[in-house]
């Protein structure tokens, strides 16, 4: 409707508790996929999949360091997403302004 594909991906990525937790852990310091995998009661492959969803949404990036893949949070992307969402959150304010217009014109 009023949300682009990029925002869809961000919403989907943030709709899962594990992914939000991964994001919170890597937002300030990077962590390897294997270090992340040790934190959750799920397979390495499952954690890898969650990281991939976050990566597709532009919320994290992966960097190869030796044999490890280190995941970093993209603070700027998060802030941009937040700004986009704040724009959309104006819907009800827009409606209130619309009601005001209707009231003013029919006085």
């Amino acid at each position, binding site marked *: 409707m009023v949300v682009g594909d990029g925002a869809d991906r961000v*919403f989907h990525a943030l709709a899962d508790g594990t992914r939000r937790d991964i994001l919170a852990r890597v937002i300030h310091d990077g962590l390897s996929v294997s270090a992340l995998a040790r934190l959750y009661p799920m397979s390495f492959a499952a954690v890898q999949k969650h990281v991939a969803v976050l990566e597709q949404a532009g919320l994290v990036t992966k960097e190869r360091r030796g044999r490890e893949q280190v995941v970093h949070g993209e603070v700027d992307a998060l802030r941009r997403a937040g700004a986009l969402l704040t724009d*959309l959150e104006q819907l009800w304010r827009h409606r*209130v302004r619309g009601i005001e217009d209707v*009231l003013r014109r029919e006085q």
Partner: protein
Amino acid sequence: MTVIDVRRDEEALTFTLVAEFDAPPARVWQVWEDPRQLERWWGPPMWPATFDRHEFRPGGRSAYHMTGPDGTKSHGWFEFTLVEAPQRLEFDDGFADQNGEPDTTMGSTHGVVTFEAVGDKTRMTMLSRFTSLDQLQQMAKMGMEEGIRLAVGQIDGVLAS
């Protein structure tokens, strides 16, 4: 500023907006009751709404569509559960398919709108209640404000941690 308060309760899954209008409750009530007035403010920017049906009474239904800048149509419905002019209005609302049939996979939102005289103004309180977190997130994907606020909260939480 006409919007005087915006609150969200992520545990109770509710979103509340309080606004004040420079008109008596009976007049503000009409912007909901009269479909020609309602369609002048319901749609998001660039998505004007057209109400094809508007049965403004308990048990009555409404069917509407919103038309985007490229001609795309998005359909929705209301079902009124309580209509007490000019004080209180309760209704369920949700998305519909291209034929206007309710989309049952999306779930619905329950809205409670109250109108209170404050001097010669009206304080309108609009509360939306969702049935589940999943539904909130589905709504968020559809660009609904209420879901969006939750996602914003998640982003704030992530940034603060």
